[in-house]
């Protein structure tokens, strides 16, 4: 193409510059942008990398969360109560897995749990026996007996071999001739006591003041009528 012809690239470029109308920014736009500029604060240069770092840390934290050690109570009694309450919650949610009939299932339960029951509370007019099953908590085999009262409260009696389990003195409560410790965890109450080399627990969701009186009564019924011993 001839660059000097009227159709040349240069001529076309010149036409574009000369013939195309130019549109000037309207006054209102100029003032609007001017006002916007006055109030505009540029983002700090460090903000983007800082946000990226925080986001990365969060993602890594979430990724490794299952691998992080759980925060467990340092006190062995509290730790044990937490495990027993967790087992009680499981029974509450899904029911006893093996609702065995006591005393017919006692030999089997003793064999599975390592806990013998010289006598066992089989329920009365206040507490209905629901089931019994072996449990495995904190690395030890034990036994759990479940009862339900007239108001629907599930009461779980759990026995684990745990020689010398310390009981927190300030939490011990005198009930008749016994002094179990009243502990609480995750909205549940637990009576904790020692019976020889065994640690015994009665757990329920009875936490209010009036409920505690009834919970004391349940403790007495279970304590009097149940006599666990190590099977070995």
């Amino acid at each position, binding site marked *: 193409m001839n660059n000097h012809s009227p159709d040349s690239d240069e001529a*076309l470029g010149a036409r574009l510059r000369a013939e*195309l*109308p130019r549109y000037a*920014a309207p006054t209102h736009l100029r003032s609007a942008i001017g006002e916007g500029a006055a109030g505009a604060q540029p983002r700090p240069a460090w903000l983007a990398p800082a946000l990226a770092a925080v986001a990365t840390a969060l993602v890594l934290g979430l990724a490794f969360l299952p691998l992080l050690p759980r925060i467990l109570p340092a006190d062995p009694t509290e730790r044990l109560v937490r495990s027993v309450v967790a087992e009680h919650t499981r029974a509450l949610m899904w029911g006893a897995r093996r609702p065995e009939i006591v005393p017919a299932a006692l030999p089997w339960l003793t064999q599975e749990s390592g806990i013998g029951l010289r006598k066992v509370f089989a329920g009365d007019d206040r507490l209905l026996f629901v089931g019994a099953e072996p449990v495995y908590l904190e690395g030890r085999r034990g036994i759990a007996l479940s009862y339900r009262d007239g108001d629907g409260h599930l009461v779980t009696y759990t026995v684990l071999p745990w020689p010398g389990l310390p009981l927190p003195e300030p939490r011990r409560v005198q009930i008749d001739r016994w002094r179990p410790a009243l502990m609480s965890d995750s909205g549940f109450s637990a009576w904790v006591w020692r019976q020889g080399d065994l640690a015994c627990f009665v757990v329920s969701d009875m936490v209010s003041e009036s409920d505690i009186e009834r919970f004391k009564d349940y403790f007495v019924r279970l304590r009097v009528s149940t006599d666990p011993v190590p099977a070995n």
Partner: protein
Amino acid sequence: MASDEFHRAALEHLDALYNFAMYLTRNPPEADDLVQETYLRAFRFSHRFQPGTHLRAWLFQILRNTFLTFYRLRERESALAEDGVPTWDTPMFHDAPEESSGAVEAHTDLERALQRLPEEFRTVLLLAEVEGLALEDVARVLACPVGTVKSRIFRAKERLRGLLRDYSKE
């Protein structure tokens, strides 16, 4: 660059940006919106501007990217509308000025011919020929190599010449 100084320097290019926006949208209210959005982004991300580089080209780049973002959004919405899904009443930006109410009419054959060019051809001509940006700056705005810019300018002018010839025969 200090904030006030940056704002002042950026506002010096307002007319050029508005002119470019008008040729992209052919609609004054949409050109207003496009330019406002461009300055909003420029002020917000002013820390990313490298002093010593061409501020004018940087602003044109933001404006074009903003236009394309909304234009593509609108194209997706149009596709949905054809499938029977309701769309918004008024799209923000478009490149179909003839069909739009409030669009600025082309008064000359040259303007009409330019309007009929695809956006990437229109843009290279406007930036290189009308605004006088160096080919390197145009390449930066379009995010493509300088060779591609040269090729597009050549093809755009060929297409423009063809359209002008057609108009002269009418």
